[in-house]
């Protein structure tokens, strides 16, 4: 029988790795502690330190990540909290397009949240994005959490 790590234990592994630090510190992530009952480990926060010699240099981008029930067989959902102008990122909401961004489109169960953040960072430095005019630093996309404050797979933010 093939060796498969179930979702929850895979996420616990990723959590431990994220808590220990991810090496170069250019991308980091952790569980969103503001959730009442985090036992399902669905809501995560990430940061990307803008790549040097680009329009993103010295900026710290915050992101939200949602890992559904079928993670890691299905990719997570991810959105920028910090405003950014970038191909494949919805200019109104900051949601990263699963169709346009390669790492989501070509997602494999072995891909991790860290890989995802690192790939997005590479994308920020790609010829299409590196010199794009950016919104003022510190602005955020509107938080589109449903009015009741409830979050779910269909509306994770």
């Amino acid at each position: 029988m093939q060796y498969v790590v179930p979702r929850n234990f895979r996420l616990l592994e990723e959590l431990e790795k994220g808590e220990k630090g991810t090496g170069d510190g250019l991308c980091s992530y952790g569980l969103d502690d503001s959730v009442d009952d985090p036992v399902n480990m669905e809501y995560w926060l990430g940061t990307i330190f803008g790549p040097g010699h680009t329009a993103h240099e010295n900026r710290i981008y915050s992101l939200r990540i949602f890992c559904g029930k079928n993670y890691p067989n299905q990719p997570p959902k991810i959105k920028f909290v910090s405003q950014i102008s970038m191909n494949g990122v919805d200019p109104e909401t900051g949601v990263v397009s699963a169709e346009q961004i390669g790492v989501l489109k070509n997602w494999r169960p072995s891909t991790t949240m860290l890989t995802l953040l690192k790939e997005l960072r590479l994308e920020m430095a790609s010829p299409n994005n590196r010199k794009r005019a950016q919104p003022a630093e510190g602005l955020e996309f509107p938080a589109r959490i449903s009015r009741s404050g409830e979050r779910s797979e269909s509306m994770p933010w």
Partner: protein
Amino acid sequence: MATTKRILKEVERLNKDPVPGILAQPIEGNIRYFDVLMDGPSQSPYAGGRFKLELFLPEEYPMAPPKVRFLTKMYHPNIDKLGRICLDILKDKWSPALQIRTVLLSIQALLSAPNPDDPLANDVAEQWKTNEKLAIQTATQWTQMYAKPSQ
């Protein structure tokens, strides 16, 4: 594979000769992944509760310990918000001579003997040390709220 044989043997024994108050069943499709139901020990704030856990045997098992966590919300100084358990045999005191059965029995024993001096949930441990009566009362309440067998 020898590991698979060992796992199957352990499962067979868990079925034939179950541990009282503990039910461990492999989850369909993955012989390393178990659903566990554990009754709270009598004479403890967890008495009358039935707690849900999940257990996974990593690739290195039995050279490495099983990974276990509570899925039911717990008020216990050695169990954190994610249900992770601070127990020596799940870490450096693991030995391949131990089994799923012994691990689950040790976890059940931990419910009877909370150890606030080696905490995982710091706020809970603090409460346990400063006002044990209130801590036990909260643990009893949580058992009523989150661990009723019907749920």
